[in-house]
């Protein structure tokens, strides 16, 4: 009997030997990377969203949910009690490395003859740089791959951050050289990574490296790019109408068109944004009659802290305040009901209801199951963030004159016309203004904790929540990585976690 009867062709799979040899395949491959980003921010592995892991340690948010025990892995982030077996940390680690892997696969196999090879490679470089930047920010030294492993077991020790930073800058520089500006992207492709996105990210990386002189030219280039302008109405920035909008530089898109129902999928591969449902004010007889403020019920996670609610109410300006949160008193006054016998994590509720990235009925499907079809995009880098990063870089580089107009533009959009109280400040006092402005402008968007760490303010602002200096600036290497990567042992764990 010949072997031929034992030869079978796999179903629905493209043989690697002749894949990535057409423009269409190259296009599909980069969409595969975008999709990984979407999955990572959605709910890969039971709500282990990058959005939560990046956001919940900040002093702007409490974890919330149905009780203090709802989603322990997320509650632990909020109280700095997570250990190396925290599943959310493991899943987010894996999410970023999947982006690295998919980008590497393109960069190492794409045929250079393809018409779109340069463009697709530049996008892949951007994604690789983005993932590594998040990894080193969250974990410090991490395993480093520019070529995917071909072995089934892993033996790859942690690489020095500087090696990784060098690769990030190299990738981004190469991407910037190739990518078109956003205005030059075709209609329907405006969501793709543009030159501005790569510049903004490179500038941000320099800022995190405290290389301010290198940061501000890149950030300024984005500000000077005609493709971008501040969205006039702050309250619309997060809505689906502003997908690839004028303020969007780097974002994750979702869709309600797939009309998911409760059958799932629950593994994160859904096309809709599940996280918005988690961020909505909790139903179950806790927050009733949300329609009076134009919202519907969600599951009550990512709840504003009283500290930030008060700050926003006092200083954000009306539009930024009402877009970000609403106080209990105002909600009740508007006709809403807050019922403390309802099912909510009341310990996490400090008098303010979350409204940014929350459950606005127009942002979900009309016919399908509303709770599981949100299409709200996540803005990972938007223009006002870049302007405030540029202002910070200028200020830190002693160029306050360049910083002030940027801050002024952000505050004017927020409705402030009188800048006399702060525009004459320089140096550290101006830096404090920038810090506060970032807090007001970017509240609940996942920047706060990482800003505090970078500024050295984490102990001051988060000490009472359990932050331990010298430990909690970065996360522990996940247990599964230590178990399965022969190159990392428990002795290599980050300080304070072993």
């Amino acid at each position, binding site marked *: *009997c010949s*072997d031929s*009867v*034992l030869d*079978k062709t796999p*179903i*629905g799979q493209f*043989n*690697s*030997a002749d*894949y990535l040899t057409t423009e269409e*395949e190259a296009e*599909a*491959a980069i*969409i*595969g*990377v975008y999709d990984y980003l979407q999955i990572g921010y959605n709910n890969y592995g039971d709500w*282990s969203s990058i959005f939560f892991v990046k956001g919940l340690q900040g002093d702007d948010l409490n974890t919330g949910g*149905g009780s*203090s*025990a*709802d*989603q*322990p892995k997320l509650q632990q982030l909020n109280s700095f009690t997570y250990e*190396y*077996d925290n*599943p959310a940390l493991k899943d987010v680690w894996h999410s970023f490395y*999947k982006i*690295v892997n998919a980008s*590497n*696969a393109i960069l190492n196999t794409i045929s250079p003859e393809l018409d779109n090879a340069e463009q697709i490679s530049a996008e892949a470089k951007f994604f690789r740089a983005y993932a590594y930047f998040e990894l080193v920010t969250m974990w410090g030294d991490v*395993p480093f*791959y520019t070529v*995917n*492993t071909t*072995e089934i*077991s*892993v033996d790859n020790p942690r690489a020095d951050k500087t090696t990784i930073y060098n690769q990030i800058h190299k990738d981004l520089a190469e991407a910037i050289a190739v990518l078109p500006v956003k205005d030059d992207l075709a209609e329907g492709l405006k969501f793709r990574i543009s030159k501005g996105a790569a510049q903004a990210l490179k500038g941000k990386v320099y800022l995190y490296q405290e290389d301010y002189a290198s940061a501000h030219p890149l950030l300024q280039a984005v500000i000077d790019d005609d493709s971008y302008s501040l969205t006039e109405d702050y309250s619309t920035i997060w809505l689906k109408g502003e*997908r690839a909008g004028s303020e969007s530089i780097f974002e994750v*898109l979702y869709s309600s*068109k*797939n*009309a998911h*129902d*409760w*059958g799932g999928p629950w593994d994160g*591969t859904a096309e809709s944004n599940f996280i918005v449902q988690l961020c909505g004010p909790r*139903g*179950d*007889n806790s927050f009733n009659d949300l329609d009076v403020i134009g919202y519907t019920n969600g599951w009550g996670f990512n709840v504003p802290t009283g500290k930030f609610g008060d700050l926003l109410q006092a200083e954000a300006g009306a539009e930024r305040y009402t877009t970000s949160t609403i106080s209990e008193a105002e909600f009740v006054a508007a006709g809403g009901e807050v019922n403390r016998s309802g*099912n909510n994590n009341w310990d996490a509720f400090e008098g303010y209801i979350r409204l940014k990235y929350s459950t606005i009925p127009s942002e979900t499907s009309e016919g399908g*199951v*509303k709770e599981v079809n949100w299409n709200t995009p996540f803005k990972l880098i938007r223009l006002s963030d870049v302007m405030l990063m540029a202002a910070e870089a200028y200020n830190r580089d002693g160029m306050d004159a360049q910083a002030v107009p940027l801050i002024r533009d952000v505050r004017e959009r927020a409705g402030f016309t009188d800048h006399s109280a702060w525009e004459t400040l320089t140096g550290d006092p101006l830096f404090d203004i920038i810090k506060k402005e970032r807090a007001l402008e970017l509240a609940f968007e996942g920047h706060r904790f990482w800003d505090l760490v970078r500024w050295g303010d984490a102990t001051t602002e988060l000490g009472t929540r359990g932050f331990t200096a010298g430990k909690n600036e970065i996360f522990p290497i*996940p247990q*599964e*990585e230590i178990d*399965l*990567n*022969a190159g990392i042992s428990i002795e290599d764990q980050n300080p304070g976690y*072993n």
Partner: protein
Amino acid sequence: TSTYSQEATLSMKRSNVSIEQIIEDIEKQTGYTFLYNQQVIDNLDVLSLDVEGEELLEVLDQLFASTSISYRVIDTQIVLTKSPEAISLIQQEHTLSGVVTDVNGDPIPGVTIVEQENPSNGTITAIDGTYTITLSSPDATVNYSFVGFEPQTIQVAGKASVDITMVEEAIDMDEVVVVGYGVQRKSVVTAAISSVKAEELEKVSNGRVEHAIQGRTAGVAVLPTSGAPGASVKIRIRGTGSNGNSNPLYIVDGMKTGSIDDLDPNDIASMEILKDAASAAIYGTEGANGVVLITTKSGTKGKAKIEYNFQYGIQNLATNAEMMNASQYKQFMEEAGETITPPAGENYDTDWLDEISEAAPMQRHSLSFSGGTEKSTYLLSGSYLKQDGAIGGEHARFERYTFRINTKNEVADWLEVGNNLNFSHSSRNILPEDDEYRSIVNSALLMDPYTPVIESDMSRIDAIIADGNTPLQNANGDYYGLNRFVTGETANPVAFMENTHNKEIRDKLLASFYGTLKPLEGLNITSRLGLELTYVTRKEWSPKYYFSSERSNNLNIAQDWVDKYYKALWENFASYNKKFDNHDFTLLGGMSYEEYTHPNYYMKSEMPKEGEQYAYHDYYADRDNNMVGGNLEENTKVSYFGRLSYNYASKYMLEASLRRDGASVLPEDNRWASFAAVSAGWLISQEDFWSVEAIDYLKLRGSWGQNGSIFNVNPFADMAFWTSQNINYPNEDEVLSGGSRSPRPTNPNLGWETSEQTNFGVDMRAFNSKLNFSVDYYVKETEGLIKGNRMAGSAGFGEDVSANLGTVKNSGLEFELGWRNTTSFGLKYGVNFNISTLKNEVTEVLDDTPQPGANVRGFNMTWFEEGYPIYYFKGYKTAGIDPATGEPIVVDVNDDGEITASDQTNIGDPHPDLLYGATFNMEYKNFDFNLFMQGMSGNDVFMAWFRTDRKLSNKPSFFYTDRWTGPGDNASMPAPDNTSDYVYRSDLVVQDASYMRIKQIQLGYTLPKSLTEKIKLQRVRAFVSLDDYFTFTKYEGMDPEAGSNEDNRQGIDKGLYPTTKKVMFGLNVNF
């Protein structure tokens, strides 16, 4: 019955020896036995015989040509009688006549009848069982004997007519067992094989065949995945050897099949469980987890039979689980810091386990017709089974019809053709279970007792309606009770029990057709084609409902899954048997080719209106919710195999086999593998020097062999590919683009999983075979165990690739002990025990990297790790409760002074240390009694149904009764705490789930023959039975046999449908 060749041949040269000597020689060479009265051969002179390869009948003709003896061959017996003229010479004094039958009323020909006082006077019964004997006196004593039956003695006392009913002897030494591609006499078997016979299967009340094996034989664990009607069952032979699927290979009438749940137990003649490598090696591929060989019944030549069996039973929930009642719940929660204030005027204390359970009927009918002519036999049968659920009633109903046609035809002397064909149609309503979020049993465990089954507070209902949502109603229009305290996905289980619409319909054809050529004496050449066709359709739809924002549905969605499985197995093999002097060789060689394809389809759409009749895809205008899916799986296998069996004088046995297998699912370079086995036996009791009279039979056995497994392979591991499956991304206008990725690394080194097993055994029978005993010791090592390799996250792959990941060692001792006897006053009884030990350990893991298994609430709970049992539970170990604080004292395992995640350690495993079973049966006059128990010990269960994220979910009452109540209290459970990992991920929720279950207490009554004959029936037996009625265990969950569909989650109890207790009535009628 045995299948001896009618064409046995003889070679012998004897001169001037006694007839006894010749008879003995013929018996040895052919396996036939002679029956005669001494008187028949008394006056014979010495004889001579010189034949070479002549047929038995010819030899007999030649031998008795010059004597007054005539012979007759009945089955495997050669009966010698005096020629009529010789009989006439005997003096006639008293004539006794009658008929000899077996217990079924079938006549027994060839029974030897001897006058005790005058042993030279005897006769045998004719083909119709009748006899006539002329006795020396009317007061004579007469002995009746027949091989395989208990001898009987009667006092004639002047009677002219005596009818005798012969009862089968306890142990039939020349029983044959089915082995791979053939049969063997049990006495020469050298392997570890256990048999379960039809008689045992007939008594089983469960409609699933697998349950019949449970507790019957040593070394075999039967693990129900659920107690729900129709739920599948896993069989583990000699421990869990593999990482994923460790099910044995099922072979039904030579055809390989994926499951045996579509067979009616009444259709089965015998089940053989091949436990050691030597017996399974002929099935090289996939024999690694043992082999279950099933032979279905066939017709008997010359006897037409009609048999009808009926069973009716009532099932009830049987569980140890007891949840906190309302007052316990209130106090516990308040001590844990929660506020429990039931709504004013409400006084509910709902026992949810009680609310979801009911007395549920089950019934089974089976009818068979069988018979045969000289050349052909046939069996036609059909059965019907209907079983409601003790949880869910008709909503968990399982119904099954089976039809069977078995035929066997001797077309010519040199050709036999036949077929075995089984068709089954079953439908099963499936309730969600084994899930901590949305299952019904789980919700009943978690729901607070303050919630009513039917809502009384209409303002709650109105509020839901006001929000545009739909509260659920029952058939009477009453609204189901809404949660008073528990939150989240947990919702009224009664509502979901009655509103789950999830039905699986399965049509399965299992058929084999064969032809056997017999061109030469001893040579059989068989070609057999087997087919297994299975169509499975599942339909699910959901009504609209609202219980909470986490448990609601506002769309009517219909979903269908269609799976078609096709497997064809074509086998060609030849066996040649040669006997000369004391040598007996059987040589087997053959090949097989297997083809498997499995296409599947998925459809989903919105329904135009709520209701079963709208759950189809053509009728809704809005296609937004439509979704389709589908895939195809296909593989092929080719195998060559050979076996040599040899025995010398049925005293020394040796067997060797070799199989070479190729499988398409493995990488090209590792596709082929060979598996060898040898075994040997020594029947010491056959030796001349054997002089221990009490021991009739003593055999030593030993075997070594290898088997392969590819059950768990994900195909094309060596192939690098890109896939587009489930990869989409929307643009800014929500237009989706398809993407692709390379999801996993390649593993060109993937090869066969190989298990190597060494077995030693002793079989013994003593005191005229009243006592039987056997013991086996085995060591089974599974190397290169195949599992999806979990890679470090940093490698960045999204899927696992199959790899040979480690070694698992199972070892154990197995004992079987039985005693059967008939007392002087006619009480027949038998006792059987079996017990086996099991030790399971992972002895090697690739790269020393432990692999995670099942996940509980996001945390890896079970692990595959060197030095531990396979998929042991890893969590926090506690050393009691601190009397001062009421907190669990967590053991600082790594001794670093702190309690951290790295202190998690082995807190139990699901593998039993001991498995045992016992049966006791008794027959007296028309009554029979059967007691059967089964159990295991040393197996742990991890209670995983808790929802620590839902603080107000209910808990078992021992959390309340055993709790720490204040400083100084030496309690076994901590102070009330709803969330701590030191409670819910610790050994505090691991319990010893050792159990002993009385599987059956059955009392039967067979109507007296005198009565049945009047109504023209052969036999009528009725019984009453208590099945699975008493269970002794300390486990406080639903069922100590916490099964799971997922292989890496054995013993993780997420709220399972327990085994039910049954009261049964049954009737068996033979026409």
